[in-house]
């Protein structure tokens, strides 16, 4: 068992255990902070997969952006002094059974499929290659995503605004 395997199992344990707490804890704020740990664990998995730029983007956008948005959502839609900060769950037992069956089916299918796996050796730096792809093959997608983010921001501000103009 070499160092790579130890890091993989560490990050996988961080990801899965904190995701478990996200799903099962009663307190929404605890769930949000466990979600942060999940995002960090997934970023570590990305680094192990030689995707350094994606890992940094994951930390900046997910932890710095989306998680803050979710925390704002929690704070603005729940009275902190109230007991409604607790989020109750329903259908625990049927959901456990069906999701367990689903996960077993998924993993059995994955393990019984002969995926073609290529050995790439040492990972190469990704940043320059991603930039070249972004400015050549994916230029149209890049531009459309810029417009989409603008529309999403304007739309979110319109929807969340106090009174209609």
């Amino acid at each position, binding site marked *: 068992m070499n160092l*790579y*395997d130890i890091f993989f199992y560490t990050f*996988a344990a961080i*990801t*899965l255990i904190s*995701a*478990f707490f*996200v*799903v099962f804890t009663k307190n*929404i704020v605890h*769930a949000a902070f466990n*979600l942060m740990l*999940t995002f960090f664990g*997934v970023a570590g*998995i*990305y680094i192990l*997969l*030689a*995707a350094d730029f*994606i890992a940094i*983007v*994951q930390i900046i956008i*997910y932890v710095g*952006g*989306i998680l803050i*948005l*979710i925390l704002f*959502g*929690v704070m*603005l*839609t*729940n009275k902190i002094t109230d007991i409604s900060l607790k*989020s*109750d*769950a329903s*259908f*625990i037992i049927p*959901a*456990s059974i069906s*999701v*367990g069956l*689903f*996960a077993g089916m998924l993993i059995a299918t*994955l*393990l019984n499929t002969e*995926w*073609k*796996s*290529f050995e*790439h050796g040492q990972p190469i730096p990704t940043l320059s*290659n*991603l930039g070249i792809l972004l400015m050549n093959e994916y230029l149209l997608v890049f531009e459309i*995503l810029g417009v*989409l*983010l603008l529309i*999403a*921001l304007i739309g*979110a*501000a319109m*929807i969340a605004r106090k009174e209609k103009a």
Partner: protein
Amino acid sequence: MTSVGLYHFLVLSSLLFSLGIFGIITRKNAVMVLMGLELILNSANINFIAFARFGNFGFNGQMIALFVIILAAAEAAIALAIVLNIYKNFATVNVDEIDKLRE
């Protein structure tokens, strides 16, 4: 115990996906449903990047993962705005109590 390879990452992402599905099914709070959605998007991203590393697709997998992260940011902004509006109109964000299309 075998050395870590493609299958380990695929099993990890499918477990994360199942946890996300479980969160979406069982939680009543709309913000918690959103958190389950983020778990699912992350598991899909792990798959994309694992196949970018172990497959023969160059950097296209990492590119798609980048686009998924951008779309997740846009989706979170819109969804939180909708949740705030629902809270303003119904004074609750439990998805099983919001069953009116108009007042």
